[in-house]
């Protein structure tokens, strides 16, 4: 096995282009379990820990997204999302606070959840609920493309990344209404979701966001419920009065 340790993002992209089968590792909370139990023996590990911009987030305005957007570096650990972004991304912060244990939340990240694309990943319901204009930045030596969150998950543990692509960041609109996240497991802490649900109201666009985890081959939204609720709120004029 090879252990690739790029020092910069450009080096990481070059390494991934040269070794498309290399498995990216950041927090290691999923990848190392596979290795420890010998379930998976990749030709190479691509360590992203030295690339500091992956652990940064910034706020800005981006084309194709309305209002303020958080560009969340792929490796920002859940502990920091909950600590630093609870106001801007309340749904994701709540979801992040249910990931594993404090030790896991110090390492695990949204980029890892997206890379693994497990239907049980806690971030997915919150990302889906945050809106159809959530985008994953997929980067390669060929350039960067934005993948809409609805197009990202394609099967059990499969996503729409090309073999030479790495996840740089996720662009998530700042909440313009209330958001919630809930998860059912066999006990309170340290649990993989039996089912998870993310929910967001978007008064600015008069839409409702949902995300269901662990209930289908991919995380998915409840489209009929979103439309029903958005119409009901509009009909009763509750969007304007905020309930």
């Amino acid at each position, binding site marked *: 096995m090879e252990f690739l340790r790029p020092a910069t993002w450009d080096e990481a992209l070059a390494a991934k282009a040269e070794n498309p089968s290399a498995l990216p590792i950041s927090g290691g909370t999923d990848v190392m*379990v596979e290795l420890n139990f010998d379930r998976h023996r990749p030709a190479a590990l691509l360590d992203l820990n030295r690339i500091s911009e992956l652990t940064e987030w910034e706020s800005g305005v981006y084309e194709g997204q309305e209002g303020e957007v958080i560009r969340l570096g792929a490796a920002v650990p859940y502990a920091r999302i909950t600590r630093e972004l609870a106001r801007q991304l309340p749904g994701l912060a709540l979801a992040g606070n249910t990931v594993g244990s*404090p*030790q896991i939340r110090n390492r695990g990240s949204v980029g890892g959840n997206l890379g693994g694309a497990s239907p049980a990943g806690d971030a997915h319901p919150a990302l889906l609920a945050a809106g159809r204009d959530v985008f994953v930045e997929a980067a390669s030596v060929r350039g960067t493309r934005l993948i809409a969150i609805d197009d990202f998950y394609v099967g059990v543990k499969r996503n729409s990344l090309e073999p030479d692509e790495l996840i740089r960041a996720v662009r998530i609109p700042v909440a313009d209404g209330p958001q919630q996240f809930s998860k059912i497991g066999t006990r309170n802490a340290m649990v993989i979701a039996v089912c998870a649900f993310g929910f967001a109201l978007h008064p600015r666009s008069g839409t409702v966001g949902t995300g269901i985890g662990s209930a289908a081959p991919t995380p998915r939204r409840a489209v009929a419920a979103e439309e029903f609720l958005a119409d009901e709120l509009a009909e009763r004029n509750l969007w304007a009065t905020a309930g």
Partner: protein
Amino acid sequence: MRVTFNANGRQVEADDVWEGESLLFLLRERLGLPGSKNACEQGECGSCTVYLDGAPVCSCLVAAGQVQGREVRTVEGLADAETGLDPVQQAFIDAGAVQCGFCTPGLLVQTHDLLAREPQPSDNDIREALSGNLCRCTGYEKIMDAVRLASARTCSTSEVSQ
């Protein structure tokens, strides 16, 4: 591959490290630091908790190569050569929070971090902070006592020294 890093304040180096090896294996089997315990190897039990650059993590889920040039502090690094056991360690002994002892190293590191961030944690804070550390002997009550005791002692000491 060769991995060089700082373990408990001292530069250490290991050769012929397998690329898929965990930090836990590196500490225990190559560097003579067996304090961190290997139980579940999947981040469920917390027995292998160490500080990595100041944040508690499961060392079984960190690839050995990822600690190159970084700082690791294990349970062996909690005690001070001159002042002796850390107050958290002493409190675990005095409160009877150690039975078989297998989970203890992880609990000590995690409690050490909790009290550094929150010197006077509520019972809820303690339960939340220790939710990733499994103990099958004590039923946790003595561990709760130990954390409260360490907190009380640390706070009263710092009041005196002020």
